[in-house]
C-alpha cells in the first residue's frame, strides 16, 4: 500500500463588520463572498471525510490576530484531522502561539522569504512535520529567472510573489523550494497566481517542477474546477495533496464525489 493522496479543503478567514471571524471565498477574481462560519465549516468538512483542513488568516491587523487565535482553538476542537494554519506568521513566537492554539502545522509564506532562518529555527524547535512553506508563484517569460520550463513552446520561469501576487520578489520559486526543503521544511504548499480563481485546473508545469526539485510532500493549490483537475495534478505533476476552496464551499462537489472519482481511476485515497 502507498500513502493516500490527500484532499484538503481550505478556508480564507477575515473579520466581518462586527469584528467576528468569517470565511470569505473569491468569485472570479472579484468580490469576496461571505461563505460561512469557520468553526461550522470545519466541523462539516471533518464529518465529510476531508484528509486535512487548512485555515488561512487573511486579516492584517493586530486585533484580527487575537480573534484568529481564538477561532483557531475553536476550529481545533472540532477537527480530528491535521489542521494547518497560515497567514501573517513571521516570527518564532507567532509559530509557537499558533501551535499552542491547536494547529498541527503552520504555513509560512512571506516571513520565510524575508528571513529564511525562520524555517531552520522552526524545524529545530518544533520539528519539520509542522513546518509548511507556502509560495505564491507566477509565470514570467523574461530573462530574469534561474530555472526555465518549456510551456507551449515558450520558455518560462516561476517567480515567488508576495501580497497576494501583487508584488514580485525576483526570487526563483524552484530555487527557493529547494532551499526551503534543505532548511527543514516538512511540506511545500504551492499556490499559482496564474491559475488562482480560473477553475481551469492546477498549474501542472509549476507543480511538477517543484515536485521534482524537493524531497518533501507537495500540496497543489489554486485553479481546481473539479475532480478531474485533482486527478491531473496527482498523476501528471506528482503532487501528494490537492487543495480546493470554492468547489467545496459552493457545494459544486462534495469530498466524497472527488474521492470516488479518484478511487475509480485508481488514485489511492482514504475512503
Amino acid at each position, binding site marked *: *500500500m502507498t*500513502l*493516500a493522496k*490527500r484532499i484538503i479543503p481550505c478556508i480564507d478567514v477575515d473579520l466581518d463588520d462586527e469584528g467576528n471571524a468569517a470565511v470569505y471565498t473569491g468569485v472570479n477574481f472579484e468580490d469576496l463572498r461571505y461563505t460561512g462560519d469557520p468553526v461550522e465549516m470545519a466541523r462539516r468538512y*471533518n464529518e465529510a*471525510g476531508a*484528509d486535512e483542513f487548512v485555515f488561512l488568516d487573511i486579516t492584517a491587523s493586530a486585533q484580527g490576530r487575537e480573534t484568529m487565535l481564538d477561532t483557531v*482553538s475553536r476550529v*481545533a*476542537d472540532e477537527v*480530528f*484531522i*491535521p489542521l494547518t494554519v497560515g497567514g501573517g506568521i513571521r516570527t518564532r513566537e507567532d509559530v509557537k502561539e499558533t*501551535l499552542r492554539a*491547536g494547529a*498541527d502545522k503552520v504555513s509560512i509564506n512571506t516571513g520565510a522569504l524575508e528571513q529564511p532562518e525562520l524555517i531552520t529555527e522552526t524545524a529545530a524547535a518544533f*520539528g*519539520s*512535520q509542522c513546518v509548511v512553506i507556502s509560495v505564491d508563484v507566477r509565470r514570467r517569460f523574461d530573462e530574469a529567472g534561474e530555472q526555465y520550463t518549456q510551456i507551449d513552446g515558450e520558455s518560462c520561469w516561476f517567480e515567488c510573489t508576495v501580497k497576494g501576487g501583487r508584488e514580485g520578489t525576483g526570487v526563483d520559486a524552484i530555487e527557493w523550494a529547494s532551499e526551503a526543503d534543505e532548511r527543514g521544511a*516538512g*511540506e511545500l504548499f504551492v499556490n499559482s497566481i496564474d491559475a488562482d480563481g480560473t477553475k481551469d485546473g492546477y498549474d501542472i508545469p509549476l507543480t511538477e517542477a517543484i515536485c521534482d526539485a524537493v*524531497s518533501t*510532500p507537495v500540496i497543489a493549490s489554486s485553479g481546481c474546477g473539479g475532480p478531474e483537475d485533482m486527478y491531473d495534478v496527482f498523476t501528471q505533476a506528482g503532487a*501528494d495533496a490537492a487543495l480546493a476552496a470554492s468547489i467545496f464551499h459552493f457545494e459544486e462537489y462534495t469530498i466524497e464525489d472527488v474521492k470516488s472519482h479518484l478511487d475509480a481511476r485508481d488514485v489511492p485515497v*482514504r475512503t
Partner: protein
Amino acid sequence: MSQADIVVVDYGLGNLRSVTRGLQRAGANVEVSHDPAALTRADGIVLPGVGAFSEGMENAKPFRKALIEAVDDDIPLFGICLGMQMLLTASEESEQVGQGDVDGLDLIPGKNVRFGRDQTVPHMGWNELTVEREHPIVAGVDGQYAYFVHSYYAAPEDEHASVASTDYGHAFPSIVATDDDTVFGTQFHPEKSGKTGLRILRNFVELCDSSA
C-alpha cells in the same frame, strides 16, 4: 456511555489539546496532569508524544517510576506516536545522534528502528491499517486509514505484540499491545485520524471502563 477516568501525562511534549478532545469525544473523563501521583487514581493512562526519543525520555523522567508501577497495578497505558516508542526498550534514534543508550520504559521488549535509506522520511500522511490478530483495541478498524508522522518504528521482540501493521516499503507494527491488555500503543495519531482514530480511542476507553 463510558465514564472511565483517563489521565493524560503532561511532560511538556505533544499536542495535549487534541488528545484530550479525542478522549472526551470517546466518552472519557480526562485529566491532564504533570503530577506522577495522579496516575495511581486513573482508570487508564495516555502517554502522548511528538519529537525525539531521548528528549522524550528525559522529559518523562519524573513519570518513569509511576508509569511502570501503574502497569504493575494493571492500569491500562496507551502510548501515542513517540509515546508508543517510549514503551519499548531502546531506540536507534538516540544512538544515531550520538547520545548513547537512552533507556525506554521497557514495557514492551524491543527496539525502535529507522526506515531504510530508500524510504522518504518522515513517513507522513494517511496509510492503511491491517489487523494482524483479533483484539478489542482494533475492533472495527481493519482496512481503515490512519494519520502517521514518524521516521522510526517499533520492532518488538515478540511479533505477537503487533496487533495491526501498516505497509511503508515493508510492513511495520502500527498498533501494539501486550498479552495481559495493560500496555498499548499506536504509531499514528488516533486524535488526528478521523473516525477511525476516534474508534480506537473509544475501544481503549471502553477497555479501561471494563477493567476499572
